[in-house]
């Protein structure tokens, strides 16, 4: 197949590898051959007959989607005969199509509509009665309108081949053929909505978006999903100040068009009625509404007073706030409050990984590596549930490149279905099982090792030693829960490490208290929590502590607060986040919720009120500071601004860290949960699969 051939398409001489499909070769040469059923990366169908082209010496038109190119082939893609054939196909397709474009969600971005415009097939000679069957709701997310369906089978293939879920099939025959869900009348699946967005027409529509607006009336904002740590780009559709749609049809970002239910539909927390929109202060034991000025004054006064008396602060940062906010927070805490008592909920031991790799370049896998490397080892993670994008990429790698995947998990996972070897090992005892795969792994040309939260502390070092001893190129991914879990560690929201994993001792100060140490300290004077909910799992020992919470909702932690500052979510601000693979990407502001402020703005207002020598901050300026100061973050800003993802390589780690394995714990989110935030996503809780269970594939 390495041979290259020369052929002519529409008079243009094109070179391509022998055996490549004509439709791809033409498209790469800038000649668009229309197709409904052909879809890059999915199995061939040759069912829609739209890609018929004229090939010299062939007695009839040939389907370009299944035609391998050969040397000397002469192809014409837009002759009168070809155009007439395509127009005829469209005329056939429209016979039983309801032509309800004015009320169809897809109107305006419908591939059938576009093709009809292109080939002038708008007028029909069909005067018979159309077939009709009623629309069906398959789940809270998925609706199917059979008459609109053109039977391209994209939905069946993306679910089967792409996700490995196999929730869709085909029933009946002839003109009454329909797509059908796996449970006959309803779906039990990932509810990812891939089938809906891949549908070229309006046959599959989403319960979240349907009938809300027309595509051209929305503002489309490409940002990064705030839920899991994979960092998918999601394009939010905003209409009338509301986010009403999420998808990634432009196939930009590390996820191409992939999104799970969270990235596609779990934006509804933004407009949840319980959303905090006014600062609250505690008066006579009750939380009452107040103004921003009064609330900020109160916090600034208290902070200054506690600082002046040299008393004890405890500050807990977030897994979802931006790098800029985390960077500023640690500056604020260390320089403004004079303490290292700063931590966050650590969902994976990235600190130990960075230390074990000792600054080795290229040892961290980027998300693209999961699609390209020849082999991968999953340790202690239910990838399809916890990291849907990484699972999708790995599966695509297996489908397209026959990647060899090894699994070591405490229970069954979806990856078992195509893994070369699957080994069951109880949580915490995975390394012995990994060792048992040594010979097989050493025989691979290269390897990506992904590991979950039970590989922590000393075990991370041993896993890296194991990888080193294989004698092949090994890359690692430390799996982390949320959209900026990695960034929180990278930005030094830690008691013992500065941004870039530099030890705090270098600055002459001793390490601060860890998260549980803060909550357990009887003499804690101030607990400041930004976008976290630590009191949901652990009580606050100090009864006297003044608690300040910046959050979106009245969480268990906020309920204990003395002051609550309503914060903006990731979809309401700009900045950057770093995914579990260490790729930094930019957030874009989609909407503004009146009454809330971004955490960065809150930090600036507090700094000014406290008379501190810094702030206010603008995300762009903080980002430049991060680039200049944080090891591994000197990535090209222009690329980032253009929507790119850039891998970061923390170069530090040459020092010895004190592993704190007891602090590492993943929240164990499934496809249908997302920590505290997930509780406010109605779409997630509305599907029957919620909340889901890990290791029950």
């Amino acid at each position, binding site marked *: 197949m390495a041979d290259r051939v020369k052929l002519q398409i529409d008079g243009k001489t094109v070179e391509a590898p022998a055996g490549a499909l004509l439709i791809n070769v033409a498209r790469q040469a800038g000649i668009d051959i229309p197709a409904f059923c052909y879809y890059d990366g999915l199995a061939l169908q040759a069912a*829609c007959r739209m890609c018929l082209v004229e090939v010299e010496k062939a007695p009839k038109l040939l389907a370009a989607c299944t035609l391998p190119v050969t040397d000397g082939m002469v192809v014409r893609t837009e002759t009168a005969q070809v155009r007439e054939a395509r127009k005829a196909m469209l005329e*056939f397709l429209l016979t039983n199509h309801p032509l309800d474009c004015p009320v169809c969600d897809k109107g305006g971005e419908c591939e059938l509509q576009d093709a009809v415009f292109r080939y002038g097939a708008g007028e029909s000679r069909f005067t018979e009665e159309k077939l009709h069957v009623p629309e069906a709701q398959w789940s809270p997310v998925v609706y199917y309108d059979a008459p609109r369906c053109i*039977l391209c089978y994209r939905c069946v293939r993306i679910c089967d081949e792409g996700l490995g879920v196999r929730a869709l099939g085909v029933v009946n025959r002839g*003109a009454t053929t329909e797509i059908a869900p796996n449970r006959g009348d309803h779906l039990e699946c990932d509810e990812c909505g891939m089938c809906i967005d891949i549908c070229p027409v309006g046959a599959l529509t989403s319960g979240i978006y349907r009938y809300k607006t027309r595509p051209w009336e929305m503002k489309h904002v490409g940002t990064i999903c705030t839920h899991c740590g994979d960092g998918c780009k999601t394009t939010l559709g905003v209409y009338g100040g509301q986010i009403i749609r999420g998808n990634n049809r432009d196939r930009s970002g590390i996820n191409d068009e992939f999104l799970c239910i969270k990235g596609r539909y779990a934006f509804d927390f933004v407009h949840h009625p319980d959303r905090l929109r006014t600062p609250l202060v505690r008066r006579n034991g009750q939380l009452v509404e107040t103004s921003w000025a009064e609330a900020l004054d109160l916090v600034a006064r208290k902070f200054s007073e506690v600082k002046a008396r040299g008393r004890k602060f405890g500050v807990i940062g977030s897994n979802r706030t931006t790098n800029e906010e985390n960077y500023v927070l640690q500056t604020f805490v260390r320089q403004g409050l004079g303490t290292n008592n700063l931590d966050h909920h650590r969902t994976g031991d990235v600190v130990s990984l960075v230390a074990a790799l000792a600054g080795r370049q290229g040892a961290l896998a980027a998300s693209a590596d999961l699609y390209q490397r020849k082999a991968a080892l999953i340790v202690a993670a239910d990838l399809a549930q916890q990291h849907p994008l990484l699972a999708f990429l790995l599966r695509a790698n297996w489908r397209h490149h026959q990647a060899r995947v090894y699994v070591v998990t405490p229970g069954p996972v979806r990856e078992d279905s195509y893994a070369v070897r699957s080994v069951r090992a109880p949580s915490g005892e995975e390394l012995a099982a990994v060792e048992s795969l040594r010979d097989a792994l050493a025989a691979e040309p290269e390897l990506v090792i992904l590991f979950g939260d039970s590989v922590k502390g000393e075990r991370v070092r041993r896993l890296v030693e194991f990888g080193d001893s294989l004698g092949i190129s090994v890359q690692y991914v430390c799996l982390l829960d949320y959209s900026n879990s990695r960034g929180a560690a990278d930005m030094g929201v830690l008691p013992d490490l500065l941004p870039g994993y530099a030890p705090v001792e270098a600055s002459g100060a001793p390490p601060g208290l860890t998260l549980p140490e803060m909550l357990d300290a009887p003499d804690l004077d101030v607990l400041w929590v930004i976008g976290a909910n630590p009191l949901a799992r652990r009580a606050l020992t100090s009864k006297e502590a003044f608690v300040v919470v910046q959050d979106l909702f009245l969480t268990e932690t906020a309920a204990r607060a003395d002051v609550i500052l309503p914060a903006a979510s990731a979809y309401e601000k700009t900045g950057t986040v770093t995914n579990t693979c260490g790729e930094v990407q930019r957030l874009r502001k989609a909407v503004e919720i009146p009454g809330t402020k971004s955490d960065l703005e809150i930090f600036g207002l507090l700094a000014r009120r406290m008379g501190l020598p810094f702030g206010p901050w603008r995300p762009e300026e903080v980002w430049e500071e991060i680039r200049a100061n944080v090891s591994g973050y000197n990535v090209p800003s222009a690329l980032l601004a253009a929507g790119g993802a850039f891998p970061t390589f923390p170069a530090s780690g040459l020092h010895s860290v004190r592993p704190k394995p007891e602090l590492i714990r993943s929240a164990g989110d499934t496809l249908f949960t997302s920590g505290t935030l997930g509780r406010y996503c109605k779409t997630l809780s509305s599907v029957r699969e919620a909340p889901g269970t890990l290791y029950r594939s």
Partner: protein
Amino acid sequence: MLYNEPSPLEVRLLTRRFGLPNSASIETYLATEGYVAFRKALQMSPEQIIEEVKISNLRGRGGAGFPTGLKWSFVPRQSPKPKFVVVNADEGEPGTCKDRVLMENDPHQLLEGMLIAGLAVGAHTGYIYIRGEYRYLIEIMDRAIEEAYQHGYLGKNILGSGFDFDVYTHTGAGSYECGEESALLESLEGKRGIPRIRPPFPAVVGAFQCPTVLNNVETFCAIPAIIRDGGAAFAALGTPKNGGTRLFAISGHVNRPGVYELPMGFNLLRMIHEVAGGIRNGKKLKAVIPGGTSCPVLKAEECDIPMDFDSLARAKSMLGSGGVIVMDEDTCMVKVALRIMKFYAHESCGWCVPCREGTLWLKKLLTRFHEGQGRRSEIDLIGGLARNMLGRTFCPLGDAAAMPTISLVEKFYEEFEAHLDGKPCPYEIKTAVRV
């Protein structure tokens, strides 16, 4: 027994045992040169067997008429994969009922043909895919298979030769489309009966992704005679490039409808008048569909023609499956078009757009037309829609629906005109059978 009284004009090669007592039993078979060809083939090399089949000029009896020897030679014998022999007994082409009499009256002839094919390509497993409607034939075939095992013609180390061969019957589920070879293989594998993208052809990638010889029942049934008497003797029965005899299922308005074995190239008019006893009730011949409903229709004046693949191709029709449908002067050709289209609309598997939508549209249009509600411009629309399907569908089913339709509109345009303006069908009172 379905088989009709034989005609003296027949050349009975494949049907030679028809009418013998217990013709389906292995005893009768063995008493009449049964498994002789297989014993002979055991002494031949695979190349010799294939060469003999090539010499015989045997062409696929399912309808396409592809040279059988050539098809077998495409099977990669050196492939490490197992090879399969698959019999297409999904006889569904309207007007065709030859395979059923072959299986009913002489099932061992089919098994012997399969065994020889197995020797030729190195296969050790055979499947007989029988249409679901032929349920009684499954019992007959299963009994024959059982007998063959008992007599050592199937199983391990057959006749001490070291050759192993097993045969299984598999029933279809009612879809005409499963007579298309790749859809048959999908169905055989337990999937939806939808055709596959070709190439690769079944000879290379067939059943269970393995090299497969897939032929029609009648094709396999011709193999024992070819090996026994030599390919040249078989070829000599027919016309150049069209070896042997053919089972013609003559139906319609003739006095003696039935299945007749005649040499390839037998004249169609003689077939109607001398073999099938002429047009019934003294009526005049109007048209003939020469090879099952997928074939373009021939007008009466076109029927003085040798019935072989090449002569009919020159007449822009096809020999097809040998289902000769004879229509007399009282036949409404609009109704014929409608009846044919109803069948294809019902049998379209739904996979590709032009066949799925085109056949249904044409069915509705022809229904309306036959009721006298057609418009003049729609006569051309009927032919035009069929042309929009022709050559553009995923598999030949779309062509099978389009070809007769195009020919009917072209050759009987005036009958379509006679249905315009709300006029009742001019033939309605004369035609006995309602659509």
